[in-house]
């Protein structure tokens, strides 16, 4: 050990040489702290293993050098090392945090305590210096601070125990509109509305947080420009090691937009509920209306037709031919009107009813209709795909097919025997096409759109009787089952009406699953 290093050991007040030695060994072997001795001018006298690890100098290299070698050039220019020694010398102790240099020129953030060491008579012997590398801690603190300051969606600030603002982040400026220097030191009640201030809410918030360890709430606050905003706040009390309240941390979030959206959403939901209730009521009324129409409106028509028929049968002998014909007209008109009412009800029903679609075998539905219509019609041919089911509402599907097939039979040419062919075929896009082809009168291109509208008729009652609702029912029915429909036709060459419904058979599902 060098002469200078022995200064410390020689002058340490120690009653026992043995314990002095142990103590010295302990200091020298401490690894996490740089502990060394300076002489009164600042020259290094001792060097422990911790100092060597931290600053990378061996004792041989450093002992005898001035401790200012550890300071960056700026600090040396401002004579910081010497000022620190003066301060320690005057006050007995000096503490500092700052950048220091290693032997290889790299920097570390150090916590430094310099202590004045006196001899028995109070004369300056030198300085004890303890250095700790706290670069990691500083970085963590820095990161935390950057994080807090960088948060702009939340106003994060701290208060002293009385509620005066002691720190802030950039979110405060963004949300509340105040610059940092405008709010530091001010009481946080400046953010509250006048009425809340009068009611003592700011104080209540702090006292609640203090008593319960936490306060959370929502409320109106004021921006610098007087504008109000709705915010959610969290206030947490901060205590020191002894448990004394040292202040509060406060996090404020502007949720005006969220509140506004929530209110809008609630309004919409309420309106929607009202509308649903209204439409349910309307639907129920319509249902009751059409029920009563089907009963009350049609009953007198049946009566008219009935009495016209009875009159002709019972008193036919007393009537001339014209009178008998008149009775025939009355009966025919009431039958026609009866059908019209029924068709209109069907049309409104098909537009309105809730359609629960289910897998339906279309070939069954077609054969059933062919059985009904084909009895008093010409030849109806079918080529059907029995394996395929479609998504349909069975009653509506039956009506659609019935209307198409009965039309195909009805609009026949006078001079040609009626031939109808019904086919089903899979389309590549997952639909099944049902086509009803006839050899009837056909439809001119300019009429092909009109015929799907309610009450559109191309022919007089004499030629082809009907209500003009049948195809409108077909179109609405197909659309409501998620399908599509159309017609291909030329006058004099017959028509092909087709509609496509979605295939639901298990084969398709399996194919899709295995893909």
């Amino acid at each position, binding site marked *: 050990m060098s002469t200078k290093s022995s200064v410390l050991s020689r002058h340490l007040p120690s009653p026992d040489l043995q314990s002095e030695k142990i103590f010295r060994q302990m200091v020298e072997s401490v690894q996490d702290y740089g502990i060394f001795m300076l002489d009164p001018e600042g020259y290094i006298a001792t060097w422990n293993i911790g100092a060597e690890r931290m600053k990378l100098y061996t004792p041989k290299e450093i002992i005898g050098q001035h401790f200012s070698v550890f300071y960056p050039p700026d600090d040396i220019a401002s004579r910081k090392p010497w000022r620190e020694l003066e301060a320690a010398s005057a006050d007995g102790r000096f503490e500092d945090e700052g950048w220091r240099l290693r032997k290889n020129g790299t920097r570390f953030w150090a916590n430094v305590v310099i202590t004045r060491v006196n001899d028995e008579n109070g004369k300056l012997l030198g300085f004890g210096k303890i250095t700790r590398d706290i670069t990691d801690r500083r970085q963590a603190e820095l990161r935390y601070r950057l994080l807090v300051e960088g948060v702009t969606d939340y106003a994060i600030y701290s208060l002293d125990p009385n509620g005066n603002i002691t720190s802030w982040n950039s979110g405060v400026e963004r949300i509340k509109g105040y610059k940092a220097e405008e709010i530091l030191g001010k009481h946080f009640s400046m953010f509250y509305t006048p009425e809340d201030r009068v009611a003592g809410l700011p104080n209540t918030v702090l006292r609640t947080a203090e008593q319960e360890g936490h306060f959370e709430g929502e409320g109106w606050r004021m921006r610098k420009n007087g504008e109000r905003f709705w915010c959610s706040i969290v206030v947490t009390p901060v205590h020191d090691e002894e448990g004394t309240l040292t202040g509060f941390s406060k996090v404020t979030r502007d949720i005006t937009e969220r509140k506004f959206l929530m209110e809008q959403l609630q309004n919409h939901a309420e309106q929607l509920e009202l509308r649903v209730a209204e439409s349910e009521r309307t639907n129920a009324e319509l249902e009751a209306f059409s*029920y009563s129409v*089907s*009963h009350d409106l*049609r*009953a*007198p028509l*049946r*009566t008219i*037709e*009935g*009495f*016209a*028929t*009875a009159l002709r049968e019972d008193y036919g002998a007393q009537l001339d031919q014209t009178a008998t014909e008149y009775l025939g007209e009355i*009966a025919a008109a009431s*039958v026609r009107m*009866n*059908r019209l009412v029924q068709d209109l009800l069907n049309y409104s029903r098909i537009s309105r009813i809730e359609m629960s679609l289910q897998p339906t075998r279309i070939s069954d539905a077609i054969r059933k209709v062919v059985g009904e219509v084909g009895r008093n019609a010409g030849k109806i041919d079918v080529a059907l795909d029995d394996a395929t089911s479609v998504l349909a509402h069975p009653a509506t599907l039956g009506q659609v097919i019935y209307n198409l097939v009965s039309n195909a039979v009805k609009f026949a040419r006078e001079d040609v025997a009626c031939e109808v062919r019904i086919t089903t075929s899979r389309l590549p896009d997952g639909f099944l096409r049902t086509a009803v082809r006839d050899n009837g009168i056909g439809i001119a291109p300019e009429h092909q759109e009109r015929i799907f509208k309610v009450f559109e008729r191309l022919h007089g009652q004499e030629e082809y009787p009907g209500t003009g609702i049948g195809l409108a029912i077909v179109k609405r029915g197909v659309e409501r089952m998620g399908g599509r429909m159309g017609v291909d036709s030329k006058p004099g060459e017959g028509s092909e009406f087709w509609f496509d419904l979605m295939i639901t058979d298990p084969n398709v599902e399996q194919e899709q699953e295995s893909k």
Partner: protein
Amino acid sequence: VSNSTKLILFVEDDSADARLTQRALQKTENSAQVFRVENGDDAVKYLEGQAPFQNRGTHPFPYLMLLDIKLPRRSGLEVLQWVRAQEGGIALLPVVMLTSSRHQADVNKAYAYGVNSYLTKPETYSQLTEMMSALQTYWLRHNEEPIIVEPPDA
């Protein structure tokens, strides 16, 4: 056995409709007697043998009740429920609905309450005549009717 001694109790509020239906019922050979009441309450009174229908000589217990649904005061479905709820003979009476309602809910309810058949009034009068003829042939000739013993106090 001739149907002329058998009686159909016909419950229908619309007098024009009733007249036409009665005419249709009588159009067929071997037609039954028809007694018409205008509402559900009267139908119940008739079946119970209450005034003014207490005389079973002139108002015999029917072989069949032909019942409309839409009736003033007590509806056809209520009359049907009442019939099936009776103890003894009245509950066994064959009941056929004849109505203009094709409402599926009505049809299902009628069967649930124990109706024997449900007919809807057809579009034309000639179809109604056909239907009424078939009705009598089936219910009064082919059908095996229950023996109805009325409660002694009736």
